[in-house]
């Protein structure tokens, strides 16, 4: 099988979806020339100005227009240039798009793709306004499905499903995974929503994570396995719908839980996972539920600050060791 990157997997899925279904089109800022992360490079030449639409610098126009086109039978895929810039569309997304089916029973089939999370390079991180992970806000807003793929294979399968789904789907691409390569089948396949992936099995404890933190966690648990600690790693894949059973099942087995995510701590999705476990797997718990997340501060720009901010492999190892000792 071919090895392709997370970025390429997303690009290929969009391309194949647009080839397969005339109703699918994409709109967003600067996507004509390929977009800032190059996801739509070449699309304009292939699909032309009616299916690859450069919008104005206006996130409410982008998402609102996507909804209007969806109501009239198209399958829009909107790009928000950075997840940080989803806030100007907050009203449109949570109040108009998210509540529409409940209020009217009319489906709103659309996908909003957006690159989320921080990248750290020689120039420091992407900073306070190009690095955020705002997915939890939308979990606290009924009617929106939320996808956060952690690898190229999932990105492809989940994006196909997102495009097929008759509901609005927020698809949070993880910038720092864009270049990560793996085996990805050609052609169309869907990964169902609401089914977590057991990324590694283990009996000693469970790490619940998703998105950018999955590779970090896997790296850590692999190292720690050498010390005889066998960690089960759950990659949630979709936050809404959430695979509650999958989480509970694992905790029932291991009795110890560490939750890891890149988003800020307070009211992050980890809080929901902890609440869920402490309500429905309480009797199986052998230790406090730990969360490993950045602190409640904006993402700092300078490299040393950004590195201190983001959970890294050592942080995960330490947290697991502590929990294991408990």
């Amino acid at each position: 099988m071919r090895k392709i990157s997370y970025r390429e997997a997303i690009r290929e899925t969009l391309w194949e979806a647009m080839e397969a279904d005339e109703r699918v089109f994409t709109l967003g800022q600067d996507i004509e020339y390929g977009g800032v992360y190059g996801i739509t490079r070449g699309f304009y030449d292939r699909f032309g100005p009616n299916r690859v639409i450069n919008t104005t610098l206006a996130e409410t126009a982008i998402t609102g227009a996507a909804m209007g086109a969806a109501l009239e039978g198209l399958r829009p895929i909107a790009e928000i240039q950075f997840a940080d810039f989803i806030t100007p569309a907050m009203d449109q997304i949570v109040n108009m798009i998210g509540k529409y089916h409940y209020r009217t029973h009319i489906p709103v089939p659309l996908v909003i793709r957006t690159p989320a999370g921080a990248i750290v390079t020689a120039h420091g991180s992407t900073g306070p306004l190009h690095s955020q992970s705002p997915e939890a806000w939308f979990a606290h807003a009924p009617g929106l499905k939320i996808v956060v793929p952690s690898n190229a294979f999932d990105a492809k399968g989940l994006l196909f499903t997102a495009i097929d789904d008759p509901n609005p789907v927020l698809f949070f691409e993880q910038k720092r995974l864009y270049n990560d390569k793996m085996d990805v089948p050609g052609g169309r396949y869907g990964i169902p929503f609401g089914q977590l992936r057991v990324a590694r099995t283990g009996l000693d404890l469970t790490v619940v994570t998703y998105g950018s933190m999955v590779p970090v966690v896997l790296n850590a648990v692999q190292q720690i396995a050498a010390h005889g600690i066998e960690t089960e790693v759950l990659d949630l894949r979709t936050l809404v719908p959430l695979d509650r059973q999958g989480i509970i099942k694992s905790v029932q087995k291991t009795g110890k839980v560490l939750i890891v995510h890149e988003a800020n701590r307070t009211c992050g999705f980890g809080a929901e996972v902890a609440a869920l476990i402490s309500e429905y797997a309480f009797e199986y718990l052998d230790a406090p539920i730990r969360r490993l997340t950045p602190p409640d501060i904006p993402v700092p720009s300078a490299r040393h600050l950004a590195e201190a901010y983001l959970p890294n492999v050592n942080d995960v190892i330490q947290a697991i060791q502590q929990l294991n000792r408990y």
Partner: protein
Amino acid sequence: MKTKTSILEPLSAVDNLNLYTQMVRMRRIEERAEQLFRENRTVGRVYTGRGQEAISVGAAYALNPDDGLAPLYREMGAHLVRGVTPREIFCQYMGRKNSATQGRDSGLHIGDPHRHLVSMISSLTASLPVAVGMGLSYQIRGQQRVAMTFLGDGATSTGSAHEGLNFAATRKIPVVFVCSNNQWSLSTPSHQQHGLARLAGRGTGYGMASVQVDGNDVRAVYYAAAEAVVRARHGKGPTFIEAVTMRMAGHSVTDPAVYIPKTMTQQWQEKDPLHCFQTQLCAEGLLTAEKIEQIELEIREEIDDAVRFAEESPLMPTDELTTGVFAEFHGSTNAKN
């Protein structure tokens, strides 16, 4: 009621009667809704378009049934022209089944994909960019369809209105923006919402065709809308229509509108769009006292029937409370895991 055959011809006698009848229906339905509110028989507050019937009816009359329509809460007339029935409307007001939101939402928040009708939300003006998206979908597919949306003078201040208006102007998306300038947004007078002598200047500021029209003259509104619709249908881009009128009631049925000077309301009372149009049609020989009576009678019966029907329609069962947050999805083909 049959709709207009060609938008390019002047309004026929039948058209004139249609317009008149729809305006009367709007007025009477809203009066009944207010009454039902006072009797605690509605779900939610009632907001009316009293004094603005000419805009709502006249503008929508310029559309084809498959054109997109995204009205706001005072646009009862647009719903009627689009064919929404009094039965549906009263079921909606009374929160019953047989309506668009079945008690989950209230008021004129009626959506219907078959009628290309968008269900507004209270948040202003979230449905305006949606109308632009409908227009975009017509443009993408090369269809000669048009979307029409309404906004108040107050709503022109929102970021969402701007983003929608500007995107439409930029791409020449086929949309008609009907701005009902009724001088007030809740308690706030228009001059506290914008710095323009004429609000129509806003459209010009987007580089789109822009026109001011007497919002109490249904035929003037119709012709302005018809021109805008033709323009949009032929790829010439959106139009901003400022229809000048006056909100002849409180913001909602519970608002005594003490902040509005009495003299202002009195002056506008003389320009009542329904009364003026009636007088004109009578003078033109298109309407008689008899016909007026007959129309009123038919509408009264229609409304009585609708209220009765609504009252007999069931409420949504409580066990449906948590259903329908999402549309059902039966999965992609070729699922791998």
